[in-house]
């Protein structure tokens, strides 16, 4: 466990010492923009606009961070040959991957937490009150980003960062639309296209399950069974992807 912790901490340190935290500046500007420029135009809907903008901003920026940093995580170690140092030490390849993943989770967790603080301050400033239930969609964003993170790690172990980023982004987009894929599958008559789309539906992460932004924006009741289902589904998806990635990584030659 100490080895995994060391690798995770190293990955976290790399993220912190690079320009990752600039994402927070972008987020502050987004919140300031929505408070100062949009709110006066929204005829009493200012709170909803801020919630919508704030939560979407957290999701967009953290997904982008997961894709941009996540897809270079392993690739950079191989390309710059820092992997030689770790591979020659008593570290299992699975431990290396898990350490990288957890380090990235720590980094994304910190960035999302700081954005949530900025979001909370924005809501407090505008509404004068803050309900903690607003933090539930933020938690679900973290869960969603954790899934993106494992997909990025998978592609980082297989391909170049550019290809990995494109594939991961496609997974994210298609995962967001997975309910529509299911609807399409239900309408199609039996045939190869239906089978292919069905396979895609099961392979892609179902991001729709993890989205609670609407409940937060429109103050509707939280569907707790949906939350528990999303949590278990994401946990299982991450575990399965981690196992597939380490199976591939186990056989890999570092040239």
């Amino acid at each position, binding site marked *: 466990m*100490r*080895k995994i*912790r*060391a*690798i995770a*901490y*190293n990955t976290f*340190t*790399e993220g912190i*010492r*690079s320009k990752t935290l600039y994402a927070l500046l972008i987020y502050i500007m987004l919140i300031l923009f929505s408070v100062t420029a949009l709110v006066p135009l929204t005829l009493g809907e200012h709170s909803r606009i801020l919630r919508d903008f704030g939560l979407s901003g957290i999701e967009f920026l953290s997904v982008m961070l997961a894709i941009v940093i996540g897809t270079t995580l392993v690739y950079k170690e191989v390309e*710059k*040959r*820092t*992997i*030689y*140092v*770790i*591979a*020659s*030490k*008593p*570290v*299992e390849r699975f431990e290396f991957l898990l350490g990288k993943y957890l380090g990235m989770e720590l980094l994304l967790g910190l960035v999302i937490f700081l954005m949530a603080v900025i979001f909370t301050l924005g809501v407090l400033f505008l509404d004068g009150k803050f309900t903690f239930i607003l933090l539930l969609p933020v938690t679900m964003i973290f869960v969603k980003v954790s899934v993106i993170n494992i997909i990025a790690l998978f592609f980082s172990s297989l391909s170049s960062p550019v290809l990995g980023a494109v594939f991961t982004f496609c997974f994210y987009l298609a995962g967001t639309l997975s309910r529509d894929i299911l609807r399409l599958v239900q309408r199609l008559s039996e045939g190869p296209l239906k089978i292919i789309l069905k396979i895609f539906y099961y392979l892609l992460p179902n991001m729709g399950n993890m989205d609670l932004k609407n409940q937060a924006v429109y103050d509707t009741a939280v569907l707790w069974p949906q939350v528990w289902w999303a949590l278990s589904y994401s946990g299982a998806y991450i575990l399965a992807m981690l196992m597939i990635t380490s199976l591939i990584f186990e*056989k890999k*030659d*570092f*040239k």
Partner: protein
Amino acid sequence: MTAVIQIKGLYKTYQKHFWMPRQTVLKGLNLEVEAGQIFGFLGPNGAGKTTTIKTLMGIIRPSAGRALLFGKDPWDIEPKQRIGFLPESPYFYDYLTGLEFLVFCGRLFNISSVVLKSRIQELLALVNLSYAADLQMRKYSKGMLQRIGLAQALINDPQLVVLDEPLTGLDPLGRKEFKDIILNLKARGKTVFFSSHILPDAEMVCDAVAIINKGKLLQVGNLADLLNARIKAIELNCRNIPEETAGKMKSRSLSSNTINGQWQFNLKAEADISGAIDLVKAAGGDIISVIPQKESLEEYFSREVAGDA
């Protein structure tokens, strides 16, 4: 003596892209390195030295054959507890300081914080980098990276130290310090296996060497045996001999030279020594020295590699 490294019929083939033909980098390499030796692994560029080392370190898998460390597969965790490795032209995490990097490496061996702290101080002093411990490695020169690389290779007090081109990138003073560290490791009972292009330096520290070319082993053995087996000439130095004797000596020699009345004759073979000494003494001359001239490692290496071309 026990073999710490055993390489048996090692093959490695690469295919850059699936439509390209496979390239064979190692062609049935066999090698054994005994404990307590300083072993030089020599070969021209592209000979397969780094590929062999990467196979030994569990970085790549062999296509056929076996590489063993302490009798075990290098992909196992156990033998890796006992080795230290410095890669060629090392590049480390440039956002870390030298100190942070060594702490990171130590944690990969589960070394306790107390032991790690004192060991890092010792190692930084050993590689002469104490002054740069808190400097981010992005600011390190090539020589400094080589030094911190050696320090991380020794963090677990390994029994076997594998160094890939450790002397490259170092200035003469740095090379001397590295050679002293290698000799000191041997004195402490460690085995050092290193590849090098800098043959005079390798000659100075190695007990045994292996020469590989095009993925095949050309020669392996104790350095003294390999070089003593081929004496190029016998250098006889003398003085106070008349011109006539000098003329006779010249006819027995491969070459000769005189400076300030002192003569140097390079005799062809050991059998010529006694006759030449008698001739000098009979003429009333003084013998200063008789030195067998061995082939240098560089000459030996060039001859072996050229013979394989």
